[in-house]
């Protein structure tokens, strides 16, 4: 091609402290296309796009837009050049009205003052265009803080569009959207493409890539690996590229890692999977010569209610791993938080070893024998600036202290080392801040810090979110170990495959209630997907976006095959009959 590409980024490098985020990435994209940027978490795709938008200053490399070099000193410059972005972490001012947020930074003025009428004229059309995504209303004068996460995300998108970009960056913009919202977004993206706008699209959802994108660039370890034309690339190849390109053959060197990956990629018909493909044998097989059902339940929950949790009952036996499945945001996280005393319980009883417990704070819960691995590592699980040693010690520090106060550094180090060894954490020095570790190693600390408290009930909220496959496998080995030691494990996961691999039973939640319990041979990804969407049969056929993406749209769930105009090839229900070559797109980052 003679003409230079519309957008070209070359040799982009960026380091954060000791961590390389971008190692000389190259990237090209043409106007009037939807270009996906794919890769496992930590592959540097977000950083690459932040360099483009000027939020991150690269250490090296250049950005050319229409052949002209872009040297932004900040987002103001890139915005002037026509680049506007929708970020993963939202950029709305909570206290501002939606309208004020939309025009923030580009307020029209008259006589030097803000012209609210012109602002309205400029922003309102976009809000009206997205009205179906707001349930039919136009929330121009509502406070951003009063909107729900999906609506805020839509406002965020409108905000980028109000700036009339030539390049629109959508960084995981669909992650918190409902189906109807995604539909509107895709329509608008289609219109923008017609108008010659370049749309850069980061997502983990295969269905969206197939439905929307023309080209796809795959990133790994801070560099680009391949750029492909979506229509010409077999879906399976795309999946492999997305999942970090891990060969889908058992790895013999890392033990459980291999089985985890193999279990995921197994071409065996769903349901026929053997225990060999699992991270751990099911409790039924593990219990030596006895029906585990006979064992007394360690944790019994009766009719538990609270915010977003509505009359949940279940039992967990010692050594059992109970999964919480369903679409995301159906009360799984809240259920665990309530059990842990971090959220208020409005009704129901919890029995631990037959005795009722009612922790009103995490402190009481820890004392009763609970442990909790929260869903957001950085915000809830770790004190990032503090040393690894202190993070390890935090829940149990009082137990090792002489007279309840005096600590021995040697004893603390020994305790931390013991745990670190058990869960395979790699670190430089225990005195380094936890923030210097990689995501996987950080997550191991969030889990490992509970070991010294010898918990009997372990609540884990998506412990494998945002960590790579190897760390994920190690994480689940830890879960297995906890269960083997006789603890009752309650595991929420955003990836159904994880639930199938690790859990003995899975409760499917919908709107805070248990709608299904899946165990034994029924415990397959397909059942879970079907169950979470209230459909009886299996619909996860090749190239069928609706089911694999698991977009939460219960209303339309009974007939997903009808398609909803997102452009995906209409899925043939018959696909369910044959062996499924690919159960679900690998989703190392979780859906969050």
């Amino acid at each position: 091609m003679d003409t230079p590409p519309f957008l070209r980024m070359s040799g982009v490098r960026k380091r954060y402290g000791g961590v390389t985020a971008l190692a000389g990435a190259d990237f090209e994209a043409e106007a009037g296309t939807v270009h996906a940027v794919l890769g496992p978490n930590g592959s540097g795709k977000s950083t690459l796009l932040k360099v483009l938008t000027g939020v991150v200053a690269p250490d090296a490399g250049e950005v050319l837009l229409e052949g002209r070099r872009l040297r932004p000193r900040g987002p103001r410059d890139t915005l002037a050049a026509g680049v506007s972005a929708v970020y993963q972490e939202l950029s709305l001012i909570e206290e501002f009205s939606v309208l004020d947020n939309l025009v923030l930074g580009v307020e029209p003025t008259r006589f030097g003052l803000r012209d609210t009428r012109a602002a309205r004229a400029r922003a309102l059309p976009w809000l009206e265009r997205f009205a179906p995504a707001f349930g039919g209303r136009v929330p121009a004068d509502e406070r951003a803080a009063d909107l729900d996460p999906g609506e805020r995300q839509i406002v965020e998108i409108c905000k980028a569009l109000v700036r009339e970009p030539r390049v629109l960056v959508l960084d995981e913009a669909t992650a918190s959207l409902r189906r109807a919202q995604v539909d509107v977004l895709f329509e608008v993206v289609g219109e923008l493409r017609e108008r010659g706008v370049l749309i850069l699209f980061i997502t983990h959802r295969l269905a969206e890539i197939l439905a929307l994108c023309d080209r796809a660039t795959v990133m790994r370890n801070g560099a680009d690996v391949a750029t492909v034309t979506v229509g010409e690339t077999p879906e399976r190849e795309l999946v492999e590229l997305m999942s970090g390109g891990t060969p889908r053959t058992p790895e013999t060197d890392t033990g459980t890692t291999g089985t985890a990956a193999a279990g995921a990629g197994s071409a065996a018909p769903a349901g026929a999977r053997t225990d060999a493909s699992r991270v751990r044998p099911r409790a039924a097989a593990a219990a030596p010569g006895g029906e585990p059902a006979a064992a007394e339940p360690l944790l019994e929950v009766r009719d538990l209610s609270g915010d977003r949790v509505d009359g949940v009952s279940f039992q967990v036996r010692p050594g059992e791993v109970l999964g919480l499945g369903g679409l995301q945001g159906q009360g799984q996280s809240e259920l665990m938080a309530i059990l842990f005393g971090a959220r208020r319980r409005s009704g129901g009883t919890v029995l631990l070893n037959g005795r009722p417990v009612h922790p009103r704070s995490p402190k009481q819960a820890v004392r009763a024998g609970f442990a909790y691995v929260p869903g957001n590592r950085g915000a809830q699980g770790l004190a990032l600036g503090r040393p690894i040693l202190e993070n390890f010690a935090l829940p149990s520090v009082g137990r090792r202290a002489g007279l309840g106060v005096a600590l021995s550094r040697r004893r603390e180090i020994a305790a931390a080392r013991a745990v670190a060894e058990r869960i395979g954490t790699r670190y430089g020095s225990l005195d380094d801040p936890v923030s210097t570790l990689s995501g996987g190693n950080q997550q191991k600390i969030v889990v490992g810090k509970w070991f010294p408290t010898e918990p009997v009930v372990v609540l884990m909220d998506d412990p494998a979110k945002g960590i790579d496959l190897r760390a994920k496998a190690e994480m689940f080995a830890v879960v297995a170990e906890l269960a083997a030691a006789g603890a009752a494990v309650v595991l929420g996961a955003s990836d159904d495959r994880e639930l199938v691999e690790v859990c003995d039973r899975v409760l499917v939640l919908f709107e805070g209630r248990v709608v299904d319990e899946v165990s034994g041979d029924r415990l397959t990804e397909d059942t879970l997907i079907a169950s979470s969407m209230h459909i009886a049969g299996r619909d996860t056929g090749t190239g069928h976006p609706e089911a694999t993406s698991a977009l939460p749209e219960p209303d339309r769930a009974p007939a997903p095959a009808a398609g909803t105009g997102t452009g995906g090839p209409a899925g043939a229900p018959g696909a369910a009959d044959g062996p499924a070559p690919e159960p679900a797109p690998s989703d190392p980052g979780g859906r969050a």
Partner: protein
Amino acid sequence: MTVSTAPEQAPDQPERPDRPGAPARPPLARRLLRDPVVVSGALAVLLWVVAALYSPEFASWGQVVTLLTVASFLGVIAIGQTLVIIAGGEGIDLSVGATATLSAIVASRFMDGSNEGFVVAVLLALGACCVVGVVNAVGVLVFRVPPLVMTLGMIAVVTGFIRLYTGGRPEGSAAPLLRTLVTGDTVAGIPGVLWLWLGLAVLVVWLLRRTSFGWRLYAVGGNPTTAYLSGVNTTAVRFSAYVLSSLFAGVGGMLLLGYAQNVYTSLGTDYMLNSVAAAVIGGTALVGGVGGYLGTVIGAILLTVLDSLLRIMQIGGGEWGDAPRQIIYGVVLIIVLTAYGRQKRLRQ
């Protein structure tokens, strides 16, 4: 454990490559240059050398002891300040100055120049301070008033109470015992107050580094949500920090009483912001969860050396009065803070 944790070191980057092995640590020399304790300590020594060159008697043993004695008041009052700031949540205690005054006034009235009421006076003074601390803590933790505003308001209340209590004319004077402790030399030519400061410093450093309370305090300051979800009673930890702050302010106030012998109503006023400055210069960041008492000690000494240096330079040519000293003091403070006390950049 090191007290240094540069804020820039932790870009909250959700995505980072998962790589085996930990990243290499920065070289030692750079770490030392970034370490507030090292920087402040070096600067304090430098200022002292300058002062000694300017006026040789500054280097005399007696002058050094006096200097440290003066620094000890700030150092003791800043103990609590350091704890409160480490506990995070925009934590700060501006009422330490007023509390120190209160303590001195209560103590002086009950001592009244004799040793008989010494113990009672100390206990009563500390009790009064304890009340101030509890009120601060309740306001901040229960009523959710921002700490800056709450402790600011407490200044008005405490000052008002002092006025009510004394009728505007503070009475009594320090017990001879207290006077001897602060000014008389007791052991090895070093006044008791310095031994006391040393003891308190060791105690506080131990408290922060080697007790479960200290580790929890850092965790609460570093990330309150994490601490809470790890079973730490965050409210109790912060509560104790505010009460301890007032108690140490009270101890500092009594030492001031011993030094000044008599009380006046503005005795502790200067310590309000200087205690914050001492902690921040020593590397305790106002965001919480970072820092330590060793830095505060150095910070207190640095501020005192600076102040004394500026004072001796005035000797002989004092036609401008206090003014140039104040100006230079402020400028040096900014320079010191610029060396490392900076917040993260907007652009990464």
